[in-house]
Structure formats: structure tokens, C-alpha cells
């Protein structure tokens, strides 16, 4: 029987954060992770994270994990047990786990469960054909084992996961034939949608999959349009060719381990389905049992880190009373509230109010109506007009165009302008506003935006030539003086341009910053380049 103060189950961001907080508060902590490395979902996330800079947003998921690993490794009183699967939590407070071919028993004083979530499944005809994958499996194959699961992929679901995995598939060399979405608007952040639209990937809102075709593996799919009541529109079926179908239709909290612990649950779709009941300090109805992260509600890494810290601190407070942890706990709670305060946090807020029975906080003033952008992922001229400087300013110096039109909890841009030209946020959900008097068009912000939504435009020169600088995350990288195709917001080729500079130092961390000389008429259309196949 192993004893410790705190047992943390799950080594994703939430679990690590709980272990670190409790470890710093002097607890003897044991952290169990089923896989052979820490990081949870983050180990598969090769993209830059949106979220709060204080919680490492703007950094790639894989890099965030490296940081966390370093922090946790420095704490001597935190023991990490990898390749260890928790099997059960029993009524006597003992947890069992499978480690190196042995069922070990652990008796801690408190437990934080942070087992994350698992993917939802979608019933459609022939969904048992080889070639139907979950997004998680695709990411594992692609980003961990370096195997491309297929060549032509249909993505089901336009939440952040569907959008991001589509982007990663293209990075890995696959073709994404489309992203379909049952709801009339795109589910994920619009910056992620725009990112794949300009690669030419169509997004079909109000559309679902009816069946997969194929004899012994997927060769295509039949799709159907839905009306505003989510009913199939007769005769609206259409087919696409693809050799894989990737399901990204949401996550459910992984509550299994809590099943016989006495912990109570509530079905709250806004939080991901059946979720454990817990208070604001992440304590469940069972004494000494805490939860954090996607297990408590399907959210983001920032929330998982904060909830983990809160759970770790709550446990520390209970096991070792007398430490002054309240101040930090309050601070974390404030952070979490701020994170969830914007329009995209609406769902989580209403879910949490169902959980705690609290009244809803006052709704945020601005909400995201279903406009053209949220249906297509393509910004309209009206959207664009709101973020450009006036004609006079355009002529004097280069300037940044931040195509971030949706309030999401994300702030790396603000923290990365050397000139302070992006107005400080009062709330992490604020939209970035550029002070064009301060902006020099230096482009430092471009590579820091997790949404790849920042471009700089230089139209100061006379004549018909202008320059656009944009982020580029594909291989092969362009070289100076190379002619590249210019793509607009829908991925259509609108002309060619000549590469004038390629910035690809370690600081860029693989987001190459490319400046292209193009026709001045195209500066507000071109948002992507394509390297023309070298023969």
C-alpha cells in the first residue's frame, strides 16, 4: 500500500497543475498518468494555443507541456508515475492502479481526478467501415507517430477540434475535402475557420453525414442538408469522394472512475454531458475528492490549468490547514471568471449556473449573431472595413491588419507588440484594437497570434506594387525571390507575387513570416500563399 497526501489521477494540464500547486504547498503528491508521457491532449497539439498569456497561450501545446514538465520535475515532493492507469477509486479511499504489470494500491489523504474527456461517437450508416476515425486517433497517428491516416479526408464537426485537425492534416500533406457542421454556424473560433478556408477547404454548415460508402474501406460519403429545425431537407443529398472520415463531434467528460465513489452527477449539455457536481473550489460532494479540467467541463487548456491549480490548492488547504492559500485561490477564481466572461464563454457560464444553481452573471453586451462570417469563415468587406486605418495613414507607414472579429478569450497579441500599439485589454475577451499612430507595421505580432489572423500591409510605395507579410506554416518553405501563388480568403488563386523576405529563425518557432510583393489592388484580398510545386 502506497501512501501520500494527494493522489492526482491524469497527467494532462489540469492534473499537472494540481500536482504543482499542491506540491508547492508542501504536500506529498503522487501523479498517475496512463500514457508514457505527461501532457494529455496537449502532447498532440502542434498548434499555438489561444487563451491567456499568463497561462502560456501563444505557445504550441507541445511546448507548454515541456514547460510544465520542467516545473513539476523541480518539485521533490511530487512523484510522477507514468504508464500507470488508475483502475478504481474505492469506498475506503483506496485507489488501485495498473503499473508495470502490477495492480498497486494507493491510500492518499485526498484525490484530484483530472482524467479529461473522450470523444463522442456519431451513428451513421456504415460507420464501422475502416477509414472512419475519431479526431483524437487521427491526431495521434499524425502528430505522435508521424503517420498520415489517409489522403482525402472528410471532417465531421466544425468545433475547434475539427478545424484545428483539418489544418494539421493539410500541414501533414493530406487533402481535406470539406468540413461539415450540423448547426447553421461554425462551432469553433472563427479565426481557426478562416485559417482553413484560405487553404481552400469548404465548410458546409447545416449539413450532416448520412452514410459512408465503400466495400472494405471508405471511398466516399453521402451528405445531406438540414433545415433550421435540424431536419433533413429531402432531395438535398450530395456525395463527396474521400478515403477517410474523421469525427470531431465533441467530447464527453471521462467520469468512469468517479462512478462508484459516491460522487453525484448532473447532465449539463453545455459542459459536455454527464458531469460531476462540484463547488467553485473544485470539490465534489465526496469529502477529499476533487476534480479539474475537461472532466469537470469541456473547455480549454487555460481553464484546465486554472482549475487544476484550484483543486490542488483546495486539497492542500484541507489537508494542511493554516497555510494562507485563500488569496491565490480567489485570484484563480477571478481569472476563471474573466476567461469565461465573453460571448464564447456564454455556454460554459450557463452550464456552470445549472451546476451551482447560481444566477447567471449579466450577459455580455456584445454577442455573436449568425452573420456571413460565422456561416462561412470568410470575413466580409464590412468586417474588414472596421479594422483598417484611414487612407491617409495607409500611405505613411506599414500597418497591421488584425482579422480577429470574434470575442474569444485570447490575448497573446496584446503582449507581443513592442510598441504597445495593440490597446491593452480590460477583459481577456476584448477584441484587439490597433492604435495606428503607434503601429509601425513591424510584424512582430504576426507569429504570435494563435489564430494566424494578423497580417501587415505596406502600401507606402508609389506605383502598383505593395507588400503583404503573412504567417506560413507549411512545407516546403518559400525562398527569397521565388514566385508564389496568391490565395484569397476562400483559397482561390488571385494572382502571383514574389517573395521578398522569409523570416524563419528559432524565435519564429516554425511559423515562418513571409513578405510578398504583390499588386496593390490585392493587398486586402491575399491572405495565404502557395508554393508552386518545384519540378
Amino acid at each position, binding site marked *: 500500500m502506497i501512501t501520500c497526501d494527494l493522489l492526482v489521477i491524469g497527467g494532462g494540464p489540469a492534473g499537472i497543475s494540481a500536482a504543482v500547486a499542491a506540491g508547492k504547498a508542501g504536500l506529498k503528491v503522487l501523479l498517475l498518468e496512463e500514457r508514457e508521457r505527461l501532457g494529455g491532449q496537449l502532447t498532440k497539439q502542434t498548434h499555438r494555443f489561444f487563451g491567456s498569456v499568463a497561462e502560456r497561450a501563444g505557445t504550441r501545446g507541445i511546448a507548454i507541456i515541456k514547460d510544465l514538465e520542467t516545473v513539476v520535475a523541480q518539485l521533490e515532493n511530487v512523484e510522477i508515475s507514468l504508464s500507470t492507469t488508475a483502475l*478504481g477509486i474505492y469506498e475506503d479511499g483506496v485507489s*488501485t492502479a495498473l503499473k508495470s504489470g502490477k*495492480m498497486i494500491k494507493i491510500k492518499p489523504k485526498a484525490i484530484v481526478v483530472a482524467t479529461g474527456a473522450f470523444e*463522442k461517437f456519431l451513428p451513421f450508416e456504415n*460507420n464501422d467501415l475502416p477509414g472512419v476515425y475519431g479526431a483524437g486517433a487521427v491526431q495521434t497517428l499524425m502528430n505522435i507517430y508521424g503517420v498520415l491516416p489517409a489522403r482525402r479526408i472528410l471532417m465531421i464537426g466544425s468545433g475547434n477540434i475539427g478545424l484545428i485537425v483539418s489544418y494539421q492534416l493539410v500541414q501533414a500533406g493530406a487533402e481535406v475535402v470539406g468540413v461539415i457542421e450540423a448547426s447553421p454556424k461554425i462551432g469553433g473560433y472563427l479565426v481557426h475557420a478562416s485559417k482553413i478556408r484560405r487553404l481552400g477547404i469548404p465548410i458546409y454548415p447545416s449539413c450532416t453525414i448520412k452514410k459512408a460508402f465503400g466495400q472494405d474501406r471508405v471511398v466516399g460519403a453521402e451528405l445531406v442538408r438540414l433545415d433550421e429545425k435540424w431536419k433533413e431537407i429531402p432531395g438535398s443529398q450530395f456525395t463527396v469522394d474521400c478515403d477517410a472520415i474523421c469525427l470531431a463531434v465533441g467530447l464527453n467528460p471521462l*467520469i*468512469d472512475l468517479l462512478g462508484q465513489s459516491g460522487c453525484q452527477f448532473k447532465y449539463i449539455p453545455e459542459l459536455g*454531458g454527464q458531469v460531476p457536481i462540484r463547488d467553485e473550489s473544485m470539490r465534489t460532494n465526496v469529502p477529499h475528492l476533487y476534480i479539474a479540467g475537461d472532466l469537470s467541463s469541456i473547455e480549454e487548456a487555460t481553464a484546465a490549468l486554472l482549475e487544476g491549480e484550484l483543486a490542488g490548492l483546495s486539497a492542500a488547504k484541507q489537508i494542511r490547514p493554516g497555510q494562507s492559500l485563500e488569496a491565490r485561490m480567489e485570484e484563480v477564481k477571478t481569472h476563471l471568471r474573466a476567461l469565461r466572461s465573453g460571448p464564447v464563454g456564454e455556454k460554459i457560464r450557463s452550464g456552470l449556473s445549472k451546476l451551482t444553481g447560481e444566477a447567471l452573471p449579466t450577459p455580455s453586451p456584445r454577442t455573436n449573431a449568425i452573420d456571413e462570417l460565422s456561416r462561412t469563415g470568410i470575413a466580409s468587406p464590412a468586417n474588414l472595413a472596421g479594422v483598417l486605418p484611414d487612407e491617409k495613414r495607409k500611405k505613411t507607414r506599414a500597418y497591421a491588419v488584425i482579422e480577429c472579429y470574434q470575442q474569444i478569450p485570447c490575448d497573446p497579441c496584446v503582449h507581443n507588440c513592442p510598441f504597445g500599439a495593440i490597446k491593452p485589454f480590460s477583459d481577456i475577451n476584448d477584441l484587439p484594437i490597433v492604435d495606428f499612430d503607434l503601429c509601425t507595421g513591424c510584424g512582430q505580432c504576426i507569429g504570435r497570434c494563435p489564430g494566424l489572423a494578423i497580417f501587415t500591409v505596406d502600401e507606402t510605395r508609389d506605383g502598383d506594387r505593395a507588400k503583404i507579410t503573412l504567417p506560413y506554416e507549411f512545407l516546403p518553405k518559400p525562398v527569397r525571390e521565388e514566385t508564389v501563388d496568391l490565395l484569397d480568403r476562400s483559397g482561390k488563386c488571385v494572382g502571383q507575387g514574389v517573395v521578398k523576405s522569409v523570416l524563419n529563425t528559432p524565435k519564429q518557432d516554425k511559423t515562418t513570416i513571409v513578405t510578398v510583393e504583390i499588386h496593390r489592388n490585392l493587398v486586402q484580398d491575399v491572405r495565404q500563399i502557395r508554393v508552386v510545386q518545384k519540378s
Partner: protein
Amino acid sequence: MNDDKTIVCRCEDIDIETIRKLIDQGVTSLEEIKRITRCGMGPCQGKTCGPVIAREIAMKTGQPMEEILSPRSRPPFGGVLFQEVLEGIDDEE
């Protein structure tokens, strides 16, 4: 594979028609469906099929999801070999 099938439970290979027929016959609890079809009794313990079946029941009967989805998960999650249990027995016990 010529007959088009919509699989609900991948562990036990159960299709949605089987489930719908049962619901029509008045078998409207997850637990009952599980017992009759073995849906959810495979290695995943109903993680994937549970919500799908619950939604079918909700659609056909109008019962609220939270009443349908009562968690009755049973350890050991992911399973454990007898051998592994034996290896872990503490000597002093």
C-alpha cells in the same frame, strides 16, 4: 459488407436498428438495453454507445437525458489481468 449498418456499439458490434426496435417494444432504459443487447458491456463500458443510445431513447420517449444517463460504471476501468492483481498483492497483507 453489403447491408448498410449503423453501428452504435463497436465493442459488441450492435447496430442502431436493434436498439430502435427495443425502444419501440418499450425497453426504454439504458440498463435494460445493455442487459439485453450487451451494448456497453464490452471493454469501453458504454462510453461511446451510452450517450448515443440515451439520445435515441430521449428522442423516442421524451424522457430527459439526465434521467436516462445514470452512471453505473463499474471498476476496474480498462480491465486488469488476474496475474496483475496477484503480482500487486502486498506481502504483509
